[in-house]
């Protein structure tokens, strides 16, 4: 039977022998924009775009393991790019592992999003409007771009998740033994997965913003969002403390509601770790952020929490054991992470509280967020009394005993992901100098591996905490709460300067806390770029960690810089799922500022972003599979990312080769001519060894072929300056980005012209201060760069 329009009339008495099956009632869609070429793309739809990227930024593999053990033919030794029994080569196998990582990461975001949608429809109904206030008309750029859907209510996301989930299953299928055999195709699939990841994140954040009234462009939102306390030192442990950990805010939001409804806001501390904490501050104004992921183990071991509530993602797998050790009852709230506990969702709340407080059970599963609110608060009030007097920080005697007991065997160092020299620090402490041990606190990523191998059973984590305790108590920062979407009006103001290059770039520090050298690097990255008038947009752990440090005036980067999406701004966009709004900002530059069609038009928008939007992600402590899928999603959209040295363990990078001239060809869409261009951006994914190296690299990855000479000169100024400041040397490739003399930084133009002449054999017209010969290409303000032949306006005669 034909589809029935909602509100249509038909006469049922005319029907004979007809079986009626009620399918979806199709609502007439408002024609908001003509549909583009690629709505809801399948695996192969955007493959040409992927191959274009992959041919320029060739996948680079660094195996973490030379074997494969995925099927019973194995183990197979793939060393030296050999093939396994199924015929797969080492390179393709690594493409496969990357796809697997992206699958896991994407599933976490999208599983979370779907779960959120279910919960919110149950709680608020499906008709909650998606309305982000007067400054945000393009409410869901990725949803429009990928799906061709303009969502009006949260229910519209049912279709979006249906699409994502189907694609995830199809991509997972490709992982089976005897399927895909080409590393290029595995990477194309990983890029597809990354795109789905970004879409799923956008969906998850939009749903929670709409339902919880998180900041938007209504009053008090955007640049005006308030600051909150960050840091272990800000938690008032004289009060009962509920500690929430994870990424799914509903249980924490309901704890906040319960506190508010019962007048307990000033009597109970609600603090969090990781993205749940960021999102809690978006819904409950008294919430505090205890720490980012890297401090999880230590915050729990310090015994700060009288109750721990976990939801999903980035929770320690040994969370129950940790909580038991410090007598903190554990409430788990999500069926994806139940930790072997009994599901008490349908039980009487007071009975559950009694069981937890009495210690009859170490923890419970409660899958109803409202119930969590009540149980957590009632439990914490009683537990606080019970836990008073419990001191989980080592005494001076215990500390002394342990540091003296260390035999300097070095086992801990071999077990430590950062190779920290714990034994030597113990030795210094034993002879009276605790500074080396205290200094390890921020360098430690809080994994606990060291303790398991210490034959002397030294509680190393506690020993370090004890040494650093005075500094931990002073860990008191301030951070803007997550603001969510970048406003359309902000994009209108900065679209031109971004594309012309006069705002030198959008820097997006995101993700986890697996830093090579502590949290201070996060602060330094933000500070350097904000002071240089880049726009710094943060999410997740880096948004938290950078707020732990202060400048000479005692101000954090959030206090020192404004929160507008504009030059010099430092914006906390929100939790990990919120980083979709950074994709969205880039997309909106293309659609709002440049007027490119958005609907179902991924390829063209990504092409625009790659060539014109100088944005660069920075995942300095990237650790999780989510970080892998996030970065891969950024990459497909044409945004490069820099990772820290641990990021090399993702096994794959996307690296450009400036020495291969033919990799750097663009089309001028005005007439179809082909132009060799400078390598901007040079890479899509690259690791740096140290922050000193990363700073100029990040600046370098902001060059785009569309830069005007003024913009290029600003970008070059920062690239050269950061390189001189941190590497004490000119970047060896700065000249590649010079097209004309007016591209050069004005302050030292003559000096640079001389260098071009002397070191690179360029021909300079000194009288006119012009470059006669040398650059890859000249500067043409009318150049209209594209990688897509179909966008050529008029074929060259």
């Amino acid at each position: 039977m034909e589809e029935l329009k909602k509100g249509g009339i038909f006469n049922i008495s005319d029907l004979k022998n007809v079986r009626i099956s009620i399918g979806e009632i199709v609502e007439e869609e408002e024609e908001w924009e003509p549909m583009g070429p690629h709505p809801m793309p399948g695996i192969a739809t955007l493959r040409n775009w992927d191959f274009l990227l992959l041919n320029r930024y060739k996948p680079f593999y660094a195996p973490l393991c030379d074997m494969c053990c995925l099927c019973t033919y194995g183990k197979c030794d793939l060393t030296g790019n050999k093939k396994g029994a199924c015929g797969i080569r080492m390179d393709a196998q690594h493409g496969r592992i990357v796809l697997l990582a992206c699958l896991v990461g994407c599933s976490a975001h999208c599983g979370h999003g779907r779960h959120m949608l279910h919960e919110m429809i149950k709680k608020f109904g499906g008709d909650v409007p998606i309305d982000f206030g007067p400054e945000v008309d393009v409410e869901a750029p990725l949803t429009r771009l990928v799906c061709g859907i303009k969502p009006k209510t949260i229910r519209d996301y049912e279709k979006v998740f249906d699409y994502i989930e189907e694609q995830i299953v199809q991509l997972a299928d490709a992982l089976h033994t005897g399927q895909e055999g080409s590393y290029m195709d595995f990477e194309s699939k990983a890029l597809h997965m990354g795109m789905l990841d970004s879409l799923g994140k956008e969906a998850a954040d939009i749903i929670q913003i709409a339902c919880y009234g998180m900041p938007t462009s209504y009053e008090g939102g955007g640049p005006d969002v308030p600051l909150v306390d960050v840091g272990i030192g800000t938690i008032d442990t004289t009060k009962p403390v509920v500690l929430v950990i994870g990424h799914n805010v509903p249980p924490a939001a309901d704890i906040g509601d319960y506190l508010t409804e019962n007048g307990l806001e000033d009597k109970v501390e609600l603090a969090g770790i990781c993205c749940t904490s960021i999102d809690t501050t978006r819904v409950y104004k008294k919430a505090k952020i205890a720490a980012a992921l890297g401090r999880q183990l230590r915050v729990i071991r310090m015994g700060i929490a009288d109750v721990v509530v976990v939801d999903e993602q980035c929770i320690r797998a040994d969370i129950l054991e940790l909580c038991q050790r410090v007598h903190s009852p554990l409430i788990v709230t999500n069926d994806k992470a139940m930790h072997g506990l009994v599901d008490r969702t349908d039980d009487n709340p007071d009975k559950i509280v009694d069981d937890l407080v009495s210690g009859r059970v170490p923890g419970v599963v409660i899958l109803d967020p409202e119930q969590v609110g009540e149980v957590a608060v009632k439990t914490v009030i009683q537990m606080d009394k019970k836990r008073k007097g419990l001191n989980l920080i080592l005494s001076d005697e215990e500390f002394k005993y342990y540091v003296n007991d260390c035999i300097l065997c070095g086992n801990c160092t071999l077990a430590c992901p950062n190779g920290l020299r714990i034994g030597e620090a113990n030795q210094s402490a034993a002879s009276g100098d605790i500074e080396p041990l205290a200094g390890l606190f921020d360098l430690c990523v809080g994994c606990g591996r060291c303790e398991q191998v210490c034959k002397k059973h030294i509680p190393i984590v506690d020993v370090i905490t004890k040494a650093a305790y005075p500094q931990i108590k002073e860990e008191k920062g301030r951070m803007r709460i997550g603001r969510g979407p970048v406003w359309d009006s902000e994009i209108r103001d900065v679209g031109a300067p971004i594309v012309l290059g006069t705002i030198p770039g959008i820097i997006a520090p995101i993700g986890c806390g697996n830093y090579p050298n502590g949290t201070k690097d996060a602060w330094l990255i933000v500070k350097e770029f904000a002071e240089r008038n880049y726009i710094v947009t943060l999410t997740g752990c880096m948004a938290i960690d950078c707020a732990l440090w202060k400048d000479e005036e005692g101000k954090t980067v959030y206090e020192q810089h404004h929160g507008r999406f504009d030059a010099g701004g430092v914006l906390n966009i929100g939790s990990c799922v919120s980083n979709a709004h950074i994709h969205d900002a880039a997309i909106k530059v293309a659609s709002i500022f440049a007027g490119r069609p958005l609907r179902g038009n991924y390829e063209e928008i990504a092409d625009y972003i790659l060539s014109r939007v100088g944005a660069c992600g920075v995942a300095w402590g990237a650790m999780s599979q989510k970080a892998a899928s996030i970065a891969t999603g950024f990459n497909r959209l044409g945004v490069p990312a820099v990772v820290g040295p641990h990021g090399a363990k993702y096994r794959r990078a996307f690296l450009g080769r400036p020495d291969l001239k033919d990799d750097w060809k663009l089309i001028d869409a005005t007439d179809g001519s082909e132009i060799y261009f400078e390598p901007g951006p040079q890479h899509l994914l690259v690791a740096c060894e140290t922050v000193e190296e990363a700073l100029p690299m990040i600046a370098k990855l902001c060059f785009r072929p569309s830069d005007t000479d003024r913009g290029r000169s600003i970008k070059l100024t920062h690239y050269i300056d950061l390189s001189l400041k941190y590497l004490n040397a000119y970047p060896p490739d700065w000249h590649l980005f010079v097209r004309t003399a007016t591209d050069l930084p004005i302050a030292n133009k003559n000096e640079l012209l001389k260098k071009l002449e002397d070191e690179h054999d360029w021909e300079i017209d000194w009288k006119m201060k012009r470059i006669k010969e040398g650059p890859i290409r000249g500067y043409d303000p009318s150049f209209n760069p594209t990688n897509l032949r179909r966008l050529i306006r008029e074929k060259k005669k």
Partner: protein
Amino acid sequence: MGMEIPFDVANIPGPEMGEVAPPEVIGSYISSAKRPLLVVGSEILRDDFFLETAIEIGRRGVPIAATGHSIRGFVEKEYTENVSYYNLHELTNCLRDPSWKGLDGKGNYDFVIFFGIVYYYASQMLSCIKNFAIDPLIRAVSIDRYYHPQARMSFTNISPEMEEGYKDMLNRLVSSIK
């Protein structure tokens, strides 16, 4: 003798794990290499001695790729003769391509020495060279105070207490480069 323990204890890549070699052996390989390359990282900046060692190897005709922010040290010592900054990912990506022109435009290398690079980053890049720079073969070795199973040859793990012994090994290595 038991199996050598990787500095990052779980970093066991597979059937092919690097040999532990004395400094003189590595030195003689460097001497007999047609195109050796020294790749240094930020950890050489932790003590002047390491920087001087790298410069000494450079003076013996081995070009240096300074990765991380190690180039700082060379500039400060005013040794810029055969040193170029390279990002380690970029450099390794080039090394795996037989047609790469090298730092001097004369072609790729056949023997690569890793020195003073953050352990796990170095290990990944050594893995890339071992697995993909195979035809023609590039031998990559490590002269750090860590056992690097992904290198063809490596020193053993050397604890900070043995720093002097390690320095002595480096001295022996340098003097064995002919």
